[in-house]
């Protein structure tokens, strides 16, 4: 039984199953991000991009059959008391260290690119052309090919070795299982690397911890690539995001921060007002500390919301108070995010 989903469930707070699924597969809508923030699982965004609804439903059914979780109204899930005891008796043996970098890259793409890049270097070091490269998308293969054409000199092998020594040492200082997991997941000359089952078997992890560690490792590689300039880091860098926001979202955010109104931004950027609002709500969830809340939440609106909405934010029911219900909902959600993030802190 894969107990991965237990970590994302709570005893006190029933959580929407689809939100959990959308967070894991990185389906970034404002609603998903909002609920992820309220559940405190934002850092798990994109942690299982490979999983699909069928698979996660199957895992959930198994947990349900074992009495560890229960499905309550509105397709929500919560831990049972048995589930809580199970977690206390068998706590996760791997705690992620790099999940705060959740926004940095699509780890699925980055890790495959990293693996193929290393494989090419490893086979190159043995002067071997007769090998099967890891099968990734054509566009990704082309990226690795042009990277190799650029870096492929006699120095490359030594440089990659120096780079990986540095990475492995940093990983080792965090958790000694990480460099072992990485070196054994590498594909290279005479090595196909561990499958997930083999990784779990060798590191004595259950499959849930194995999946968590693998994603953590991919995030660590991305964070390392962001801070260094070795050949493999240069291969990964183009895949890294500069901020948790998408470039378009970031532009909206900067324009509003410089004093423009939502309507002005929408006109200048030829976007719908609703899109600009979504950009701002996303920024409020992902980068709350950078937001000028006073600018976005006019004092009168804030006073109204202070008076009418109290208690746990997830239980608030929206009701429009002016002629523009879309604008009302934007303020309501923004206020919810603000209050929610203060509560979470």
């Amino acid at each position, binding site marked *: 039984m894969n107990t991965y989903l237990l970590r994302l469930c709570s005893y006190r707070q029933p959580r929407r199953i689809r939100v959990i699924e959308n967070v894991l597969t990185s389906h970034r809508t404002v609603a998903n991000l909002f609920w992820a923030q309220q559940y405190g699982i934002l850092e798990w965004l994109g942690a299982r991009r490979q999983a699909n609804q069928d698979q996660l439903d199957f895992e959930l059914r198994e947990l349900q059959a074992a009495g560890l979780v229960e499905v309550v109204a509105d397709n929500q899930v919560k831990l049972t008391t048995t589930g809580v005891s199970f977690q206390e008796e068998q706590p996760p043996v791997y705690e992620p260290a790099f999940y705060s970098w959740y926004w940095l890259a699509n780890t699925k793409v980055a*890790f495959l690119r990293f693996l193929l890049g290393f494989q090419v270097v490893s086979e190159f070091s043995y002067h071997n052309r007769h090998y099967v490269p890891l*099968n990734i998308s054509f566009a990704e293969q082309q990226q690795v090919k042009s990277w190799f054409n650029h870096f492929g000199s006699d120095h490359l092998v030594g440089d990659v070795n120096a780079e990986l020594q540095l990475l492995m040492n940093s990983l080792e200082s965090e958790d000694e299982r990480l460099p072992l997991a990485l070196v054994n997941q590498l594909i290279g000359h005479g090595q*196909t690397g561990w499958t997930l089952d083999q990784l779990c078997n060798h590191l004595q992890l259950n499959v849930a911890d194995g999946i968590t560690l693998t994603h953590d490792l991919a995030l660590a590689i991305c964070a390392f690539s962001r801070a260094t300039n070795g050949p493999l880091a240069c291969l990964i860098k183009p895949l890294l995001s500069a901020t948790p926001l998408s470039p378009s979202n970031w532009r909206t955010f900067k324009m509003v921060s410089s004093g423009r109104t939502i309507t002005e931004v929408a006109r200048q950027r030829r976007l719908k007002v609703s899109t600009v609002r979504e950009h701002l709500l996303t920024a409020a969830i992902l980068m709350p500390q950078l937001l000028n809340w006073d600018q976005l939440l006019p004092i009168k609106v804030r006073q109204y919301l202070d008076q009418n909405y109290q208690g746990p934010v997830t239980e608030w029911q929206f009701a429009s108070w002016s002629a523009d219900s879309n604008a009302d909902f934007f303020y309501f959600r923004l206020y919810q995010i603000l209050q929610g993030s203060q509560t979470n802190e």
Partner: protein
Amino acid sequence: MNDAKIYEVLKQHFGYEHFRDGQLATIKALLAGKNTLAILPTGGGKSLLYQLPAYLLPGPVLVVSPLISLMQDQVDRLHRNGEKRVLMLSGGGQDRRQQLSQLSQAKFIFASPELLANPEVVRALQRTKLSLLTIDEAHCISQWGPDFRPEYLLLKQLRHELDDPVTLLLTATATPRVRHDILTKVGLSAEQVVTIVRSVNRPNIFLAASELASSDEKQTTLLKLVTTLPGAGIVYFASRRLATQMAEWLRENSTLAVAAYHAGMPSAERFRIQQQFMDNQLQLICATSAFGMGIDKDDIRFVIHYHLPTSLENYVQEIGRAGRDGQQSAAVLLYAPGDEQLARQLTTTELPPAGLYQKVQQGQADRRVLGPDYELFDFYIRHHYSISQLRESFGKRQSQVAWQLHQMQKYASLTSCRRQFILAYFGESTVEQTDCCDIDEPGWLSKPLLPPRKTTVVPKKNERWDTQLQRLLNLDKESNFHFSNLDKQ
């Protein structure tokens, strides 16, 4: 083209001294510019039939293949041979545009029939002077044409648009009726084609089947089989979930190195499992039929089917992955009551109501209303099939599918020789041989039928990460940043 030149390429590019039966005749026919239908048994070296001529012909070879996994296996095989001028057309958008811009550099181009229905792809191929068109698994033209893969029906038109290149039709299993159908669908007459047929029989594969009372009994029998039969094996399942669950169960209940394999797994996992199986680090694979369509492992000793395949054509294809090295191997079919229901579900296509079909045809409703198979029906709408034509075509196909499944069931329950049954099915005459099937030798499992197990390669353990990294990068332990054998080459 003289034989000496052909043998030279065989040695130079493939490392072989001799051809297998039927290979040279096929290659000579192709090099003489003749369209050829080659029906060679599984494991008969069919990929060589288009790969070798590619090195003697000026232009690239286009290989039409039904499954991505099959194409990927062929691409991997070429890479392993050191051939880099390989292009597998897949995906859309930017990927496809990039691929098409590199067509002129390719020696081998792989594509699915669906992709070849795209006008942009066809135009790009028209600019590339193809030397050979190969239709791999050509029985799909007949087997899957009217229902499952309608784009196969467009290959006739495609061939014409590509200026009627010399065409190689390849298959391992084709009854005389299917052979005739293949030619008709590609728009060739028997007179325009050289047909090279070798027996479907694989004498080194022992045939067995077990009828079991329940799924529990089936599971127990499977465990007994995989722990008794020596060597590498594949167990085929009808679903991904069962393949995964049974792999886990077999790992827990045996000492075997077992892995599940199916198309829903992450690509790196699939890569690792396939390579580990090739390197004998894994002994047993629990797979769906996606695994090993063209796997380049010649010492698979047994293939077990945990579910009833939908036809003998499929069954013979799948068991044909065993014993490519010519050594004794075995194919076992496990059958429990009710298995045929599952197979029936997999082969049934529900037609939409006539009114709905016509509404979509007239643009009055979205094609999605036609149900889960809407893309399939959409093909027929785009090609102006009336509902009655569709009914007729599907009706014929449905009865053919039912008949094929019935034959498969009969095979599972036979009380007479299984090999003779298969040969008769494919219109071949009977053969006499030892180590034939479980009907002749009911106690076969207790006999040392198969050659002993090869040593399983156990990957190095307890190696420090830095040592392992140095090995992967071929570095001298003393001097970290130098090649150890750069100067030795």
